[in-house]
């Protein structure tokens, strides 16, 4: 890690999020404080129902919070109106999902080009950049394949290329290896690790998969809506 890691990409303070009302109200996040720094890969772990995905959605600005504040790259995201938040998300964040969520009718290259098309980049330019990105994730020979013709690992690599194609500074990953076998999961995490090493980006990964814990820089444990501990992960060869 470099000195840049001390620059907080995400600063969350006192986040409370509840679902439902009255007697059926459930508070999922109970006052979360969390800083995530540029140049790091943060693992968000914990038991099921502990609030990991809710926290991830709140940080991404796709879920309104009841209390607290979230600043992303210096922008008070939780205070932005919905349309500005959507635009900000499109310009600064990339998403990787457990189930890939690729559009089945689009080829790999077209799927990767989608975030650029949303940002109104011309189709030819978007496809050109998508092809470059697919080459980077090792799928240069699968550009014109439909998702159904790709393996799970290949589909997740397409999803990573899609998440990275508009060069987001914040990469948000929800169980990216859950649908993959061991070796494919390792390859995916190597790719994400590489992205996380960049000094102007950070990666947040929600996971249950203990086989990939060593790819993280820090690991935050979320239990019953609270962060119980944040530990720095020691890797072989690190100082």
């Amino acid at each position, binding site marked *: 890690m470099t000195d840049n890691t001390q620059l907080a990409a995400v600063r969350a303070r006192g986040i409370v999020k509840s679902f439902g009302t009255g007697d059926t109200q459930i508070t999922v996040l109970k006052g979360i404080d969390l800083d995530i720094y540029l140049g790091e890969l943060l693992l968000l772990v914990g038991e099921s129902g502990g609030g990991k*995905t809710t926290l*991830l*959605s709140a940080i*991404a600005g*796709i*879920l309104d919070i009841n209390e607290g504040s979230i600043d992303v790259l210096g922008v008070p995201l939780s205070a932005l109106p919905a*349309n500005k938040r*959507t*635009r900000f*998300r*499109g*310009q600064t964040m990339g*998403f990787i*999902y*457990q*189930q890939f*969520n*690729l*559009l*089945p*009718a*689009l080829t790999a290259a*077209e799927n990767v080009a*989608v*975030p650029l*098309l*949303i*940002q109104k980049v011309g*189709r030819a330019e978007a496809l050109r950049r998508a092809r470059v990105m697919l080459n980077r994730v090792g799928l240069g020979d699968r550009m014109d394949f439909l998702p159904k013709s790709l393996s799970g690992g290949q589909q997740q690599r397409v999803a990573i290329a899609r998440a990275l194609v508009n060069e987001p500074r914040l990469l948000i990953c*929800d169980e990216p290896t859950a649908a993959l076998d061991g070796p494919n999961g390792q390859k995916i995490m190597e790719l994400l690790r590489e992205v996380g090493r960049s000094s102007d980006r950070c990666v947040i990964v929600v996971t249950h998969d203990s086989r990939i814990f060593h790819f993280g820089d820090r690991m935050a444990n979320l239990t019953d809506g609270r962060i119980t501990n944040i530990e720095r992960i020691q890797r072989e060869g690190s100082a």
Partner: protein
Amino acid sequence: MNYVALKMLFGDRAKYLMLLCGLTFCVMLIVQQGSIFWGLMMWSQANISNLNVPIWVTDPGIAQVDEVKPLASTAVDRVRSVDGVEWAVPLYRGVLRARLTNGDYHQITMTGLESATLIGRPAEVLEGRFEDILQPDAVVVDQWAVERMGGPTVVRVGTIFELNDKLARVVAIAKTQKSFTNIPVVYTTYERAIRYVPHERRSLSYVLAKAKDGIPVEDVIHRIRAETGLGAFTEEDFGIKTYMWVLKNTGIGINFGTTILLGFIVGMAIAGQTFYLFTIENLRQFGALKAMGASTFTLARMILLQAFTVGLAGYGVGIGLATVFGYLTASGGQLPFAETWQLLLLVLVALLVICTFSALISIIKLARLEPASVFR
């Protein structure tokens, strides 16, 4: 994102074809039924349009063209005396029975035209010369008379038959628009028509007239009404009066209206449901697009583009099929089929309503979709 929207639409072939079939069926049904309906309406006023005269003068209480209310023979001169009338001629119209030489009887519509001008004569003659109607005992029949009375071997130029025990000789065959009742039309001169029919105190059916050049037809009609106490109508108004009577006094309007409405509802139901299913099945993908920064407006535009694309494809195919149907069934004049541009425009508007409605259901669903749902 238009490209993505179209790829999504065409990528799900089963859904696309189901949507296309639904909308095609809907358009075809509406166009086909609408064209037949409009064709029937045109047939209902064929006895007006076949004569092609600008002003019809008759009894003021007349309901429709086939309901003849005889006038006094002086009515012609009274109309002629109205300021602004260029000409006015008598017309006889009545139903008679023709007896062929083979003993068959056929009901015919006798149309008597003023012999000096033959105003009201059909524009097109298929065989013979219309002017020969001035010869003794001469009549002209329309092509439907040939068809209804036994075909060209039985009725042709030179054929002789009896009308009320009086001789009639066919000198020409004219082409006319088929009428609603499909009773063959026999033309002769006004004077001879009066001789063919049993004697009545009043035998003048209509006075046909024209306004002088430069004088508005409506003004002349008002003057005729005011000065003669008779009813006067433009050709168009008399046609409307006739088909309004048909709509009111037959089940045609309700019958065709119900079918057209059913086509509209079935089209809307199929398109709406299929589109909604299409959206539900792609909900995670749409959620992912929202998370990636696509606004609800962008997604709504994508849905509308998909709906209108499949809608216009269905419109084209549906009209094509309806036209082929019309060509195959109506080219011989057996079925009324009038596919007008007004009808096609109306169907296009109906289709756009269906597509907008279908898209709207999906758009409401997408507007309520939380992008966070993709993480669940």
